[in-house]
Structures are given as structure tokens and as C-alpha cells.
């Protein structure tokens, strides 16, 4: 019996082929998984979880920059106004007496009605609701 077996050229070639094939297979599988896992760009978010309603005390007007929207808590409950200008879609800025579009100068009063063009339509009202988890949600569509 050979106590110090030397690897034969045939075995080496077999082993090397298997190793290379395994590496190529793993690389190929990785590429395949990456391909199958590719995500298309996600659709724009339309449901925003604003957390507990208590974060927004009565009388507050909170600008939600990532929506963008203005959340108003009045005696009538929660309401929200889109801060997307109805002219071309720029984000309007909240001011003391209403909203101003920095792009083309449209102005809106505190209720979102147009007070100066070129915008022709009022700012959109957005739906709010308190869901079963107790959180306040805002919906942009």
C-alpha cells in the first residue's frame, strides 16, 4: 500500500476541472440570482404613516417635506393640503398668509385657493385617516 500517495496527472486534471466548473457555476448562479432579484424603480409612495396623532396638537400646521404636504389639525379634525403647485408641480413654500411657488410665482391663500397665477387650480386636498394601528396616515392618491 502506498502511504504517501502522489496525485496523478489524471486526478489533478479532474480536480482542477471540477474546481473551475464549480467556480464558474457559482459565478453564473450569482449573476442569475442578481438578474432575477433586479427591482424596477419603486412606484412613488402614496401612503404616508405619520405616527401617532398626538404628535400633531390641536391648532398645529405641520409641513411634511417628504410628501410634500401641510397637515392641519383643527377643531374639525385632521386635514391636509398638497404642497405641489398645480401649475407645473414645483413644491410651494408655506408663508404667513398662504403659499408661494418659488418657480413661477403662483400664490395660494391659506385654504389653497389661487390668489395669483400662473396656477389656475387650487392646491389639492389630501385624504387623512387614523388606521387600525392607531397611527395617522396621509394618502396622496
Amino acid at each position, binding site marked *: 500500500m502506498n502511504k504517501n500517495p502522489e496525485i496523478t496527472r*489524471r486526478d489533478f*486534471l479532474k480536480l482542477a*476541472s471540477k474546481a473551475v466548473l464549480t467556480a464558474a457555476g457559482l459565478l453564473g448562479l450569482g449573476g442569475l440570482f442578481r438578474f432575477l432579484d433586479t427591482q424596477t424603480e419603486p412606484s412613488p409612495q402614496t401612503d404616508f404613516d405619520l405616527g401617532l396623532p398626538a404628535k400633531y396638537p390641536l391648532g398645529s400646521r405641520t409641513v411634511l417635506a417628504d410628501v410634500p404636504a401641510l397637515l392641519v389639525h383643527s377643531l374639525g379634525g385632521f386635514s391636509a393640503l398638497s404642497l405641489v403647485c398645480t401649475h*407645473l*408641480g414645483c413644491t410651494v413654500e408655506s408663508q404667513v398668509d398662504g403659499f408661494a411657488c418659488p*418657480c413661477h410665482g403662483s400664490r395660494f391663500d391659506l385654504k389653497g385657493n389661487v390668489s*395669483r397665477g400662473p396656477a389656475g387650480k387650487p392646491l389639492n386636498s389630501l385624504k387623512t385617516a387614523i388606521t387600525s394601528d392607531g397611527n395617522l396616515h396621509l394618502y396622496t392618491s
Partner: protein
Amino acid sequence: MRRYFLLAASLALLLALLFVAWYEKLHPKPVPLTPTLTGQVEYCLTCHSDLAQISNSHPVQTFGCVLCHSGEPLALDANLAHSTMRGGSNPSDFSVVQASCGSDKCHSGTPESYSNHIQRATTSIQATYAGAIANIMFTFGVQPDLTARLGIFSVQVPGSTSGITALAAFDPAQETNPYVKAFGQNCLTCHLSAQPMPGSVYFRFTGCAACHTPTQSADRTSTQQLQSSQIHKLTTSISYTQCDTCHNRGNYDLRSITFTPRQDLPIDRLHDYYQPIAQFTSCEWMLDCVDCHTRTEAMGDGNLYSSKLDIQYIQCKTCHGTLTELPQTRPLTDPNDLAFRLALINPVVDLKLGDTILVTGKNEPLWNTCVLPDGIYQLVGKATGEVFPFKPVMGSACTQNGTDQTSAYCHTCHSVTR
């Protein structure tokens, strides 16, 4: 032999996969942007995130890049991404401007909404060059009068109130008159579709960007040389140096039918503004061209004209009045007054309801002026922000004949010596 072949094939497969992985690594991770106006994702910011926003009126989050520039929005290879861009780096070139800057919400709306910019600009005398062409045709006996018949491109304005409803395309190759032919070869470098002449002082883009994209420093003493790829800006704050990429750079010689560039190269404003032979007043060189010449004068009013004299109407009395009349003014009582919109785009003044501004004879707002409480007037430079107080002629020692408003007449007493 079979073993060697198997090993070689396995190695080739592995190397091919490694090459693909390496090639993938070369591409940057895409940076997505979904502009509000299009709602379609685009990857332009992957490479262009360092590009300055073109103007406050065109925020990238709202407009993105593709709406104006076109191109392949999802391509990460520069050549592919840029392969279908409109107008190369200049989507405002008149050959593509309608597709780039048009739509009724943007710049091809109605006169009533002050958004018919493309219709006005493409029919303006600076675009059609109809005045220069008509002058040459008349001078060399090709047409019987100075009425424009030809333009750089054919254009129709069926309802034109100027009496000219259409221009045919001027084609120098078809001209038999040698002077007109030479004019076509040597003198068509300064209309809005023409590529500029070689030389940094002539450097400008075409189309809207010829005026609204600053390729010239406002200060000739600046050593900064702008490269076209670095300029991503649209503005109504237009320095005289931008206007001078075409104007005041030399003269057309009717004997040789060539353009003769001015030879002096001054870097100070007083000597640079106008050619050495020109006569002018203080306000003509201290202000910028756009401080007096209105949007209608520069960009036209949508009608076709035979000469710039038919569209330019600002006179000294527009701001200074005459001995018997104060300049026309208008209190700003309507929040939709055009003056507010123009002032918003170039906020060198903070106009408010109740302010009184000067207006032209055609009721165009000179929105960068105001009437001060003590009865004198003030103009703020649109390009410099500099404040210029000025007084009316009425009550002054001026002995003018108020009906003569030619520049030569006023220059008799008020020209600047340099």
C-alpha cells in the same frame, strides 16, 4: 486529450464570467430621479449630479433632464444616453425648441398668459434676420423696397398685424446677384440660429440660449474662460457682454461684403460697451441693454417685421418724460400684473402691491423701476443690481424739443466723452 479540453473550456467559461462581472463593476450604480412633471424615472444624475440647477424656474426635481434634453433616460453608457439628445447640448436651438421648451404650459402658450415665447422669438427680427436681408436685397437692386420678403428660415404668421404675414427662406446658393451671394457667405453669423464666429468675445449658444445662457463674464477684466460644457444656466439677468457677442463687435463693409471686427480690445466697460465711433449717454453704457430694451423689443411681439426700427420703440422720454410730460407710470394693483412675474424670475427688486412702476408707451412694465415718494425715480440694474436714481426732464434746465426723441438729438448735449 478530452481532459485537457474540458479544463480549457471550464477556464474559458470562468474567465468569461469574470470579465462580465468586471465589466458590470465599471458601470456606476444608477442614481434614479423621478421628476414630478413626467413621473418617469431617469438616471441622468448618475453622472450629472454636480451640474448646477439651470434656474429657479426649472428645478430638477420637477422637470428632470429628459423633458428638455431628451436622450435615453435609462442608459448608463454616456454615448448611448446622449445619442438621442435634442440639439446636442442646447435644446433651445430653434430647430428643436418647440419639442424642448414648448407645450402650452411652458413656452408655447398664449399671449394672454405671457407664455408665447417660442412664437415670439422665432418670428423676431433677431431670429429671421429679415431686416438685414431686405436691406441687402434692396441696396443691390434685387427688390424694389425695404419690405422683408425673406428670412433665415421660412415662417408664417397669418394674423400678423405688421402687414407681413410670411417670409420665404433666404437661400444664398440660389441668388445670382454676386453681392447678395457674398452677403450670404460672409455676413450670416449673427442671427439666432447662426454658429458664432471664432473667438471668445463672440462665443454664445444658438436659439434662446444665445441670450439667456451667459457665455460671457459680465466683467471683461475677469480672466475666467467658460467652457460650453460647464454652462448650465438660464437667466433674464443678461449682461451687455452677452448682447455684445453679436452687437458692437465690428462692422459690415458693404464694399467688400465682409464683416470687419473692431480692432480695439478694451476691458473697461466705458470703452468696451460701444465701438470707438459711437456716441452715447451715461445711462447707455452704465446700464445694461436689458435695463431699457424690453422683452418685446428683444424677442418680438409675435409679428414679422422688416427692420428692428419697426419693433424698437424705447426712447429717452420713456423714462425721463419731456418738459411737459412726466414718464408714464402704473400703480401695481393687480396681483397678476406681469411685472410681478418678471421680478420673480430676476429678483433684483422686491415688488409689492401698491408700488408704482414706470411703463412704456405700449404699457409694458419697466418692472425694475419705481417711483420714489419724493417724486424722483429709481432703476435697479437687472444684471448688476446697482441702483440708479434719476430725475424727470420736467422741471429741469433742459431746453429740448420734446417731440424730437432721436438719440442723436439727445446726444447733442448728453453724450459721454471717453
